């Protein structure tokens, strides 16, 4: 695949790449790149709210529903004395049927027992089908000048005129400014709409305003990105941004950043390599941002989560080893003993080796040729774990009414999550009841 990409971009020099990225290019290209960047920023902001309001796929129905509007506007513009190829006219048509589509989704939800997913799917496919019908009608029966209409499906940034870009930029910045102005209202509705309603906010009006912003961005992006992929600009950047933060303002800023960067890089790459359609490249750039975020974001990322789980597993495993050593009263754990512990807990040989490295790395033990020798830290931890184990065992027997024969397995699970505060509390409770405590001299941290 890289090979095919390389062959597609074979003739491009590094100099050209830098020139394009710095916008030192032809006027038209510069306009297109600036325009899609603005579009990306606006859709990042609007999309963040749409995602939080769980309206992500509503935008999909909306954008598919614009197709019949484009074809009908083309067909009927001459009736009203308008130029049928004018972008503004086509976009007005797109807006009308797009909004109609959203209204249909809501009507289906209100009038029938169908669920939202079915309603969205119905509107999306039926409206798009109507669009295909209208397009085929236009192409057969009024072929003059209808060639450009297909471009709205997949987008065609490269052929955009300066005037078209201006229109796109105006629509996008309108949505951007309005969303920032309504930041507080949108936040309120996204997080707690019933509270907002009780507090006297016009929730349906705010929802309507949010949908209007979505419509603006969608319509703005139709020509550059195409109606199938324009939803990606609204969905992918906010989902990517969600991995990095729990704060709303940061989420919106990051989402705008991802959207803007996708628009900028996508249009630039597509300008360099004439074969690359801008819409697809923009969405793929956003897709890369999403992939990187999902894998490597610090706290919600997949890698961070896997590391966290691995660390917890290792801590539990090493506790088992130290406890076994303490209970056996030995400082030295032979290779054979280690294998027995591993078999008992069902560890693979590889995991047992990692546990050994972990114990040595945490300076709980030192490695020798035929096993490990516990250090002071390890001995202390072993005592502590063993004592927690005993504490829990007695707690479960005396408080939770678990038969003594059933105690041990659950003990193994809980002793690792026991907080030290809880241990002191337990200790006190058990002391009050006069239960015999195992010696814990000097181990309570």
């Amino acid at each position, binding site marked *: 695949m890289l090979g095919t990409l390389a062959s597609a971009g074979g003739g491009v020099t590094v100099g050209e790449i830098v020139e394009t990225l710095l916008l030192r290019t032809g006027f038209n290209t510069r306009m297109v790149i600036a325009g899609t960047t603005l579009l990306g920023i606006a859709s990042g902001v609007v999309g963040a709210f749409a995602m939080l309001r769980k309206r*992500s*796929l509503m935008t999909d129905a909306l954008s598919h529903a614009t197709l019949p509007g484009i074809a009908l506007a083309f067909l009927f513009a001459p009736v009203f004395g308008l130029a049928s190829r004018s972008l503004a006219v086509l976009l007005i048509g797109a807006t009308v049927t797009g909004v109609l589509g959203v209204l249909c989704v809501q009507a289906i939800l209100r*009038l029938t*027992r169908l669920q939202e997913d*079915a309603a969205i*799917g119905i509107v999306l496919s039926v409206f798009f089908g109507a669009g295909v019908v209208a397009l085929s*009608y236009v192409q057969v029966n009024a072929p003059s000048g209808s060639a450009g209409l297909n471009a709205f499906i997949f987008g065609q940034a490269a052929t955009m005129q300066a005037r078209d870009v201006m229109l796109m930029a105006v629509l996008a910045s309108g949505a951007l400014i309005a969303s920032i102005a309504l930041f507080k209202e949108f936040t309120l509705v996204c997080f707690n709409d019933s509270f907002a309603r009780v507090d006297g906010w016009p929730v349906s009006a705010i929802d309507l305003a949010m949908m209007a912003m979505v419509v603006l961005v969608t319509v703005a992006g139709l020509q550059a990105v195409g109606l199938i992929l324009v939803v990606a600009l609204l969905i992918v950047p906010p989902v990517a941004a969600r991995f990095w933060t729990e704060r709303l303002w940061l989420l919106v800023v990051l989402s705008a950043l991802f959207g803007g960067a996708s628009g900028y890089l996508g249009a630039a790459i597509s300008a360099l390599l004439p074969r690359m359609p801008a819409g697809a490249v923009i969405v793929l750039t956003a897709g890369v941002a999403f992939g990187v975020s999902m894998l490597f974001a610090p706290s919600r990322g997949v890698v961070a*989560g896997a590391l966290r789980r691995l660390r917890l597993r290792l801590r539990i495993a090493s506790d088992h080893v130290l406890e076994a050593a303490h209970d056996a009263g030995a400082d030295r754990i032979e290779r054979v003993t280690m294998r027995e512990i591993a078999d008992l807990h069902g560890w693979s040989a590889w995991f047992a080796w990692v546990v050994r490295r972990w114990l040595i790395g945490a300076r709980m033990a030192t490695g020798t040729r035929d096993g490990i020798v516990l250090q002071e830290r390890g001995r202390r931890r072993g005592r502590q774990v063993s004592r927690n184990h005993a504490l829990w065992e007695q707690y479960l027997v005396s408080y939770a009414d678990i038969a003594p024969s059933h105690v041990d397995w659950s003990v193994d699970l809980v002793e690792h999550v026991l907080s030290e505060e809880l241990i002191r509390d337990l200790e006190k409770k058990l002391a009050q009841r006069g239960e015999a405590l195992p010696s814990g001299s000097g181990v309570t941290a």
Partner: protein
Amino acid sequence: MSVGPVEFDLARDLFPLAAGVLAALGCGLLGNFLVLRRLSLMGDAISHSVLPGLVIAFLVTSSRGSLAMFIGATVAGLATVVLVEAVKRLGRVESGAAMGVVFSVLFALGVLLIEVASARGVDLDADCVLHGQLETLVWFSAPDHLSDVALGDLLRAVPQEVTTLGIMVVVVLAFLGLFFKELRIAAFDPALSTTQGFHAGIMHYALMVLVAFATVASFEAVGSILVIAMLICPASTARLLTDRLRTQVWLSAAIAVLTASGGYIAAAAVPGIWGKEEVNAAGSMSVFAGLLLAIAVVFSSRHGVVVRRLRQRRLARAVVREDLLATLYRASESGRPGTAITTLSEGRAPRLVRAAMRVSERRGDVRVADGRVVLTDRGRRVAKALIRRHRLWEHYLVDEAGLPPDHVHGTAELLEHLETLPPEGPQVDPHGREIPGDG
């Protein structure tokens, strides 16, 4: 043969119609379980994201040989299902957004790859993935009349798209036939299904594999948008018509066949009325599917808008009639022999009151004379039962629900119209009025 203003031409129409009907049938049947399990948009996601699978298979094998493309697309379809699950679980992303991310990025990849492929002088058209190419399924050597068709000729002439679709329908039918019970339980109660020994997760994946298979088989002929329409619309329409799953499945099959054939005929017939050329058949089928759904939304005898409106109106009228009888009864309790119609109209629409009085008079519940209304014996019995329910409810609301006595009238006013009786109570209501006896 001719259907309305359109000639049915064997050469031009037979295979496109067959392909449309088969695709609609297979997708429509599977759609029942997608719609029930709120997975409708999985069909949408899969049909968008098979595009890169198709193109990659095409680039690797450099042929439009269908098997490779078929495998590529199926793999891409399954990858979508797995990726959506992964993004949802690993990323803790809401399912709509997860689908949106996966299918839009994969679709973008497909569009890009198509451009790369065409850079190498290979022709692959993204448009036909969306619109389908029903119109190309021509039977060149077809005889003029259906009666002249030799079976051998027909079988040899069947395009491979139609064969694939036929196999798909058979597989879908077999799957539904064999696993209907399991699918039903998994759709309504996944936990129960798992405890009964067939894992709901496995049924989910089996269903998804079939959806991917049906999508891929269909969209080469009819386009991905029609696939979505067929997965969702017939099942949704059937769901509005019945409450039984088995009936719904049969209905959806019938609706799917009707959609495909109706849409196909309309594609030529409707523009033909104005003497225009025919329009895209796949698109016309989606519109037809939407039309049938709209009809069901409005006219369904069970959940239709009209029926519900009528039912509400009938109920509203019955409530007004009963309320008026109750008012008359209360007036007679305080010794007045009749009530003026104008008094009854207070706080109610005069039109409704007049209509209610007309019906009550016809039923023999009241007599109207000189603008005054008097209860007949029959009307008195009806009103008495109503008042009894009202006062029993008031008693119940005060005694059992702990409401203050001055807050219960409004609620009792609503509850009195229900069939259910509150538990028996004492002889007087919370306001000290007598509760009339039974009968």
